[in-house]
Structures are given as structure tokens and as C-alpha cells.
């Protein structure tokens, strides 16, 4: 690799590529924002920007007729995703630690199973799950969504965290044990603080996965008792059957994006690599 200074030509090339990627990625977001600010009559204005900025759509989903659909869904989404993330991170931290540190039979099996579960197509299990859930009374409940979400979030959490744990020099833990710590103390006082960037990163990834789910959300719920936002969006209707709810959907999409952006901004500092530098030589 050329680690020296970039030539001017290369700088320009990188700048152009970066701008292209940024535009490609952000254009739909800007479009949705613009759409959410158009009033229903303005949606068909055949322009990119709204003729006049209107908060009508936001009013509609928070206080208007769509609010009974959207507000409970938002609460459901936040609650279910936070619980699923918390459980996934705690379980994954313990599993990943065991997988990366201990030698036990079936270690490979656990990792392979985790990977297998994560690549298993959701659509193929959603129908049997629907039957099972309705039979045992988990259909349309928070728990009924948290459990399938764990199947999505746990594998990736285990894999990410195992990678993080492997980076932490084992000597640190041994040093702690020689210094007089029990295994648990060594884990809590030395390993967990060092793994915290990994834990935060994992938590955010897990939260996104749960937050973005649509298939489980639409299939395993029927009322606002447990229906998450992505599923609720599909139930939006216009004021009349001839009116498309595009503006309201756009506004809701923006609202559900906000927690994600806020999360990343909040934990940006925690996700710093290189926290372990200085532990050992090199």
C-alpha cells in the first residue's frame, strides 16, 4: 500500500468518489424529507421541493387521525427494540466471552449455529411461528416479537463481540487473576471496560436490526398492542381512498429515522477503536 502523501490527482479522485457516494446515499433521505414537508395537495406538484413547507403530515401522525396508528406503534417499536437489544447484548457478551476465552466441546458448533440462524430466511419460519404463537398466546404481544428479534440480533452480536474479545490480550485477565481477582472480578473490572466500545457497537447494530424489521412485525401482530412502526406504516391510509398517504408515510419514516441518528451521535465517542493501546508492547 502507498502510505505516503496523496498526490493532487488522487485527492481529487477521492473527493469525486466521496461526493458521488454521499449523494447516492443521501438523495433518498433528502427526497423523503422534502416529501414529508409537502401538504397532500402539494405531493403531485412534480417538483423536488415542496411549494410551501407544511407540517401537516407531522400533525397528522402525531395528533391527527393517523396518530392512533402511529403513536402506539412508535412506543411498541422503541420498547420492543430496546428490550430485545438489552437481552441480546447481555447474552451475547457472556457467550462471546466464553467462546473467545474458554475451551469447551461444542464451541465451533455454537458459532456455526449462530451463523446458520442469522442467514436463515425469515420468511420461511414466519408462518410456523405464526401458528405456534397463536396457539400459546404469544401472538400480538411484545414478548411475541422480542423472541424472534433475539434470533435476529443474537447471532450478529455474538460474532461481533467475539471478535472484540479476541482483540483483548489474554494476559490482562491473567494479570488480574495473579493480582488477586476472581474470574468474575477480572471479567468485570478489566475485560468489560475494555470491551465497552465493542458492546456499544454491537448494541447499536442489534437495535438497528430489530428496529428495521418488517416481516415479523406485520405477521405476528394484529393490533396496536404490539405492532411496530414499520408494520404500522403499511396501514396508513389517505383521507379518502382516492388519496395516497405518501406525505404521512414520509413523515413517519423521518420520525423513525431520528432515534437511529440520535443513537449513533450519542455513542459515537464510545465507538472509538484503539482503547486497548498501551496495554501491551506494540
Amino acid at each position, binding site marked *: 500500500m502507498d502510505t505516503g502523501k496523496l498526490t493532487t490527482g488522487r485527492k481529487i479522485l477521492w473527493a469525486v468518489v466521496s461526493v458521488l457516494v454521499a449523494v447516492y446515499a443521501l438523495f433518498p433521505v433528502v427526497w423523503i424529507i422534502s416529501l414529508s414537508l409537502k401538504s397532500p395537495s402539494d405531493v403531485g406538484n412534480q417538483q423536488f421541493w415542496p411549494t410551501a413547507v407544511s407540517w401537516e403530515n407531522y400533525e397528522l401522525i402525531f395528533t391527527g387521525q393517523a396518530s392512533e396508528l402511529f403513536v402506539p406503534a412508535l412506543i411498541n417499536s422503541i420498547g420492543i427494540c430496546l428490550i430485545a437489544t438489552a437481552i441480546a447484548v447481555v447474552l451475547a457478551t457472556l457467550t462471546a466471552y466464553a467462546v473467545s476465552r474458554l475451551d469447551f466441546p461444542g464451541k465451533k458448533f455454537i458459532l456455526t449455529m449462530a451463523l446458520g440462524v442469522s442467514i436463515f430466511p425469515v420468511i420461511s419460519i414466519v408462518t410456523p411461528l405464526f401458528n405456534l404463537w397463536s396457539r400459546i398466546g404469544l401472538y400480538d404481544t411484545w414478548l411475541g416479537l422480542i423472541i424472534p428479534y433475539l434470533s435476529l440480533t443474537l447471532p450478529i452480536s455474538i460474532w461481533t463481540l467475539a471478535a472484540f474479545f479476541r482483540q483483548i490480550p489474554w*494476559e490482562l485477565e491473567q*494479570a488480574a*487473576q*495473579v493480582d488477586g481477582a476472581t474470574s468474575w*472480578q477480572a471479567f468485570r473490572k478489566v475485560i468489560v471496560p475494555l470491551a465497552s466500545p465493542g458492546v456499544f457497537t454491537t448494541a447499536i447494530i442489534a437495535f438497528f436490526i430489530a428496529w428495521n424489521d418488517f416481516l415479523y412485525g406485520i405477521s405476528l401482530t394484529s393490533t396496536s398492542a404490539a405492532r411496530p412502526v414499520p408494520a404500522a406504516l403499511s396501514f396508513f391510509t389517505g383521507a379518502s381512498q382516492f388519496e395516497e398517504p405518501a406525505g404521512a408515510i414520509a413523515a413517519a419514516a423521518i420520525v423513525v429515522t431520528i432515534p437511529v441518528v440520535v443513537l449513533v451521535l450519542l455513542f459515537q465517542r464510545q465507538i472509538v477503536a484503539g482503547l486497548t*493501546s498501551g496495554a501491551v*508492547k506494540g
Partner: protein
Amino acid sequence: MAEINLSRIVKKYGDGFPAVNDVSLRIADGEFVILVGPSGSGKSTLLRMIVGLEDITDGELTIDGERANEKAPRDRGLAMVFQNYALYPHMTVFENIAFPLRLAKDLGEEEIRRKVEQAASMLELGEHLERKPANLSGGQRQRVAMGRAIVRDAKAFLFDEPLSNLDAKLRGQMRTEIARMQRRLGTTTVYVTHDQTEAMTLGDKVAVLKRGELQQYASPQELYDEPINLFVAGFIGSPPMNFIPVRNQDGVLHSPFGPIPVTARDEAALAEAPELLIAGIRPEAFEDAALLDDATRQDRAVISATVDVTEWLGNEVYAYLPFEADAEVSQALAELDRDLDGESLRTQVVAALDSRTRIGAGDAVDLAFVPESVKLFDPRTGRNLSRDDENAARIAERSEAARQQALERAREQHSGAA
């Protein structure tokens, strides 16, 4: 303060290969013991078994007379300095050193601060206490690791190649520092290294290991003067001992450089020895015969050879003299080289001569040496046929007396200062 006793310790890994095989060591209270050997000799494994990071397959480890095989590391009361320091990167230097004290739980904040500051001042870390390990130099990190070990009243200090990550100059300084610290605290210390210089300079006693087996456990001087076999002789000393194939015929040893007389000391041992032997002479035993007066020259044995290369070091000159070895012996020598982590490039003799010598490359030279400085080894078993057990016992007695005296003095100074 503790006495550590290893009795017939064995470590076998899953494949049944013994990484450490039947090692017995008695480490007296306050003694500084070095475990030394080339890579793969099991020295680190042995240390990790003492501290409790590796299970002991067989044998018994006692610390202060108490069986410790099954004890968890934290219950053994030992302190260890790791090769890569293993500092806690999320804690300041102060917290790193205080860590073992905080775990002990029976100390107040005031007491902890006092102890940490005492340890820090001993290691000259006082001004770095609030820094993080990432911002320290290699030598400072090394000292923090030592601070963490000395801050509590550990029964013994264990060092696992603590200096191998430092540059040559710092290594020399830290070596002296460790020796001084150990003498001052008088704490039992076990120190692992692959560097024979560290072993010789630091240790009260040195255990030489080869492929998991203990070769010799003695004071540095005894290892140097009375090595028990070819391996120890080749491992201890720098530059290493020269090994020359000789044939014992009619009371004379025929070497590629000419005849060497058999000394009275060796006559008995040679009666049952094979004809073909390996003679070991240390480079520093050679003198340039041209620089000796006639009287001295009378007592010396002399060999003649042509110098291939010389290296002038200021205080001495290394002269290199190549020779052709017998096939039978060269195989034994090549194997020895492999054991010593070396590569047998060519058979040659190195002579460390006084820098007044005038010899240069290509010169024919007469090298004089005291005949008793030649050690004879059996090429098949590697055993030192010239070993003088009485002399070895005398050396052991003397070094033990010197150690006791040093400890006594340290105690007096300590109580005087307190």
C-alpha cells in the same frame, strides 16, 4: 517471603508431549532463581505452573510447605511481571499499581495511597501516576508492571522475560534495577529468560532447561566453571565455548590444531571414555602466545592455526579459526547447535584475545591456554568427563555464603533505614 518447592513437576499437553518433564527445584526463601533455556525448553510453562496459570499434570508444588497444585492464582500470593507488561489500559498508572491492593479489600484509601506512592518512588514513577499506560515509554511501562508486583507483600516475584521488549541499553539499566530491587526487598524471585547474560548476572542460582528437562541447577559460577554436560557448557558464556573434536591416543589429545596434553585431573575419567571426544575451551581461555613471557609459556599448552577473520572490539580481539571436524563429531555438534537455537554454519574456534595482540586475518598464530581449562565431553552422552565435583561443591558453598551475607546486609540496612 516464601520457599517454593517443585518436586518432579510434569506438564503434558493434549497431544501427550511433555513440555516440562520431571523437574525438581528447591527455591530457598529470598533466593533469586533464573529459569533459562532456548525457546521450547519449557521455562515459561514452568513459571506459569508456579503462578497457577497452567495446570500441573504431575508432581507437587509447595509454597511455604503448603501444597499449591490446586490453588487458584489469587490464593497463591505471588506477584508476576508479564513479558508484554499486561497493564490495564483503561486505568491510570496509580490505579494500575493500586489494583491488587483494591482487590485485597482490607486496606483503607489512605493506606493504599501511601503504599502506591512508596512503590512509585522506588521505581521513580512519581510524576507519571496520573498518566495512562498508552502515554508511557517502554521502560516506564515496564516499571509500572514491576510496581504492580512489588506494591503488595507478595510471597514471591515471578518475572516472565520482562526485559525482552526493551532496547539493549534500557535492558542493561533495568537489569541492574531489578537486581537492586530484589536485594533490597529480599523477596524470593523466579525469573525466566532466554538470555544467558541476564541469567548469569542476576541469579543466585540458575536452572538450565532443555526441551522440558532440567540440565543443571547451580550458581552461575558453577555453571561456567563446572558445567555438567555439553549443552550447559555451550549455553553459558558469550561468545560460547569452543568445541573441538579430539582423539585420545597414548595420553595425548589429537586435535585439528595439534596435540593437547591430558591433565592429571582427567586421566582417571578418560580410562573408560571413548577414543573420540569433544574438547571444550572457552574463548577467553586463549592467550596470544607471542605476548607471554617464557616462564608463563612453560605452563601453557599451545596450539597453532591460521586466523581467518578478526574482530576488534576495543578491549579485546576475537580471532576466528576454522577447522574440519570428523563426520562423527560434527553430527553431535550440529545437534547441539540446534538445541541451542543456533545454526551450524561452519566449525570454527573463537579466541578472545587481549587487544594488545598484533595478529590479523591470514596470520599463523600460536594460542596458549592453561591445560586445565580444557573440558572433555563424551560426544554420545554429552556428559562432562572433566567435571570436578569437589570444586563444584566448593563453589556452591561459597556462593550460598555470599548470598546469605548479601541478604543479611540488606536486612540490616532496611532495619537501619526504618
